[in-house]
């Protein structure tokens, strides 16, 4: 049976270390969206030793480019499902190490480099159902801030206040387990076995 937990951001290392692959988490507090271009800019700043416009220590990064509308001078989030996390694979380990990101939320899973950084520095990956953008937007209570709009709406850093944001399936924990990796390895094994059976290998 999968455990269900309700957590508040910022997240402590202890809370994160308790989580195991297969746990289901609902988040409340602040989460920050960042995709390809935002990751690149964040890491350029880290390299240059310059500060970020937002302190991410203890907070989740959400791989998401939301669909938004301005109403009466306020941003409204209409749809905000996750984007494919694997694109951020080359950069995410640095964000975890240098910026203290405690959770990465996205879809499709991430690779070894990120999983290693999560084990080392205490962070987890939470999978949200890809395409379930309205379910996600329903849990966004407010747009607190937005930075780097010059990157375009999908690529900007959206600082979102969320309530009961989930279900997030913990798919990489801080103990070296990677659910997507396991599913994928088994899939390759099944494929190779089927080839052998048909005398193809």
């Amino acid at each position, binding site marked *: 049976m999968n455990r269900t937990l309700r957590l508040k951001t910022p997240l402590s290392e202890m809370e994160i270390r308790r989580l195991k692959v297969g746990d289901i988490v609902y988040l409340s507090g602040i989460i920050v969206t960042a995709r390809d271009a935002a990751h690149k800019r964040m890491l350029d700043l880290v390299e240059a030793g310059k500060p970020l416009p937002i302190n991410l220590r203890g907070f989740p990064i959400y791989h998401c480019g939301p*669909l938004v509308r301005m109403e009466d001078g306020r941003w409204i989030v*209409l749809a905000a499902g996750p984007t494919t996390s694997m694109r951020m694979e080359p950069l995410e380990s640095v964000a975890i190490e240098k910026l203290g990101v405690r959770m990465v939320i996205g879809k499709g*899973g991430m690779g070894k480099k990120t999983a290693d950084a999560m084990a080392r520095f205490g962070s987890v990956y939470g999978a949200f159902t*890809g395409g379930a*953008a309205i379910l996600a*937007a329903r849990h966004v209570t407010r747009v607190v801030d937005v930075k780097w709009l010059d990157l*375009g*709406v999908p690529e900007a850093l959206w600082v979102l206040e969320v309530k009961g944001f989930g279900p997030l399936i913990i798919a990489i924990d801080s103990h070296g387990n990677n659910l997507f990796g396991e599913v*994928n390895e088994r899939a390759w094994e099944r494929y190779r076995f089927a080839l052998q059976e048909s005398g*193809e290998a």
Partner: protein
Amino acid sequence: MRVEEIVEDVAARLLRLAVVKLPSDVKRAIERAYREEENPLGKAQLQAIIENIRLAEELERPICQDTGLITFYVRAGADFRGLDRVELSLKRAVKKATRQIPLRPNAVNPFTQQNSGNNVGRLLPYVKWDIVPGEHLEITAFPKGGGSENTCTLAMLSPSVGVEGLKRFVVESVLKAGGMPCPPTIIGVGIGGGADISMDLAKAALLRPLNKPNPDPWIADLEHQLYREINALGIGPMGLGGKFTTLAVKVSYAYRHPASYPVAVAFQCWAARRASARIHMDGSVEYLTHKVEEA
């Protein structure tokens, strides 16, 4: 109304229908997958998907925040008057839909990385023309998300690998894609022609209704074999495990060059958005994929 106004109005409606409401064949395939999925994590993903589809219809909002890169497939009757103005009307429709629905601005200059802000840019929206006999104009709006687009593959295989070789390439493409294209996906496979022709065929195969078997029994059998082999991998909904990695496999082919054996695999996410309508010369409009109450 003039022809260009009708085309603009219909295209904008089609975009709204496409991004808000999935065609009924796609919904039925997802519901069936939910009923039959046994893996609890995979089943939970399908449950969230079904709930999201319902909310999108209820709130009249786009199903997914990625409202895609927009292609229009146009089947133009040779005797339809005003064809020279159709592309301009489609561009106008995209700008209008982007503002009104709204759609996420998804057109980016590949050199400056600037987002145009209105989903229009060089060659966007992309228009695929097909000239057919008759006096009507059939338009299909096909907004396709980036996640499933990024896992599309093309191989110029050696003809000696044969049908078994092409099947291996398709299944390995699905293995490499894993959870990234938002499974359960629809998979279009284009075989033969040149590199461009095979990918064209693979993409166009994604427009076929899921519930209609291929009229060519040999191709129908190949589709079924690929469907079985892909769903035996256990990648499952969103790559979290389960027996529904794909909802349907659709194969199209052209004859090939003796030296070439091109195979293209086009992935479509579960949010398989498409909407079609036929405009007649008298200005009347038939919606083909969705029920429309007032048109």
